[in-house]
């Protein structure tokens, strides 16, 4: 009898593993200091009550991709998605430890930060090629969106045919121009938000349910 039960359990486990759909992983990408971790924290706090990671004005505060699992977001019409949120280090093509010295960080710590940041960016690119199912591309709407790194990243995301929402962040600041971001990437939905005061964040959740569901 126990042999039958064991066999049944093994078959059930095998079938469950075979048919189980991997949870959708949504990566938050963008250049350094765009507000990626602030958004990841807001999403996680709003829907799970917990945060993801620390934020700071020093670039590359996030130096490791951090995953918050099982975040269930509910849209206005009652539709829900359950996703893993992956907060990634800011993508760049150059990192100089001297940049951190300007923020009062000592040389040893600055060198360590730079090394960790380079590893983090490489890891983020690897995640994008292997493990990400959708992207929130985060931009600081007070800055020029036409930077080559943004153009390249959007091209990479498009080539992988991943659904993408562009979040034009920091609209609470006086120099914000989300319209510039809409002109730069007219082929993608652009949501103007402020992660600091939460403005339009509900609209972002609606779009997430629509595009990533």
């Amino acid at each position, binding site marked *: 009898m126990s042999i039958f039960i064991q066999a049944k359990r093994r078959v059930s486990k095998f079938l469950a593993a075979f048919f189980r759909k991997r949870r959708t992983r949504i990566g938050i990408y963008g250049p350094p200091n765009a507000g990626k971790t602030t958004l990841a924290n807001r999403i996680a706090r709003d829907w799970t009550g917990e945060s993801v990671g620390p934020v700071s004005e020093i670039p590359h505060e996030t130096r490791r991709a951090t995953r918050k699992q099982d975040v269930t977001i509910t849209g206005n019409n009652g539709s829900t998605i359950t996703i893993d949120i992956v907060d990634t280090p800011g993508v760049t093509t150059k990192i100089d430890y001297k940049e951190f010295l300007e923020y009062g960080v000592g040389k040893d710590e600055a060198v360590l930060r730079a090394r960790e940041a380079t590893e983090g*960016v490489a890891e983020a*690119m690897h995640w994008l090629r292997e493990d990400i199912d959708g992207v929130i591309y985060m931009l600081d709407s007070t800055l020029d969106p036409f930077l080559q790194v943004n153009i390249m990243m959007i091209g990479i995301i498009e080539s992988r045919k991943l659904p993408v929402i562009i979040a034009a962040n920091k609209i609470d600041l006086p120099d914000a121009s989300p319209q510039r971001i809409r002109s730069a990437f007219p082929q993608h939905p652009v949501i103007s938000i402020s992660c600091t005061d939460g403005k339009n964040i509900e609209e972002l959740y609606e779009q997430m349910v629509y595009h990533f569901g």
Partner: protein
Amino acid sequence: MQQGVQIDLISEERLSTLTSMEKIHMILDDVREGTIVILEKGLDPEEQSKLIEMTMHEILPDGFNGIEIESYPSRDQAPGFLQRLLGKSTPESRLTVIGPANQLRMIRKDKDVISAWISSR
């Protein structure tokens, strides 16, 4: 000793004979030596992704600190009958300038002009 900056202009024909990894190694080897590399035809998105990743692995304190890269905005090629049937449209990669981040600085870019400033080491 003569001072200056070496610029390598790589033709589309030459690029077409190289694999993705050969292109990336060629670019990074040259740029780490202080050479400015101009590609007649840019890298595809997969190659760009690997270039960013491999650049990060090459960065050293007080040494190579990364790359500056700029290219003309890509033009979506008009899809042919088969491409329309398959729903594919390939963005055309265009002329691309790559150099060491501490020597190459972009001044201005629009759809037809890239203006850059290069310093010697």
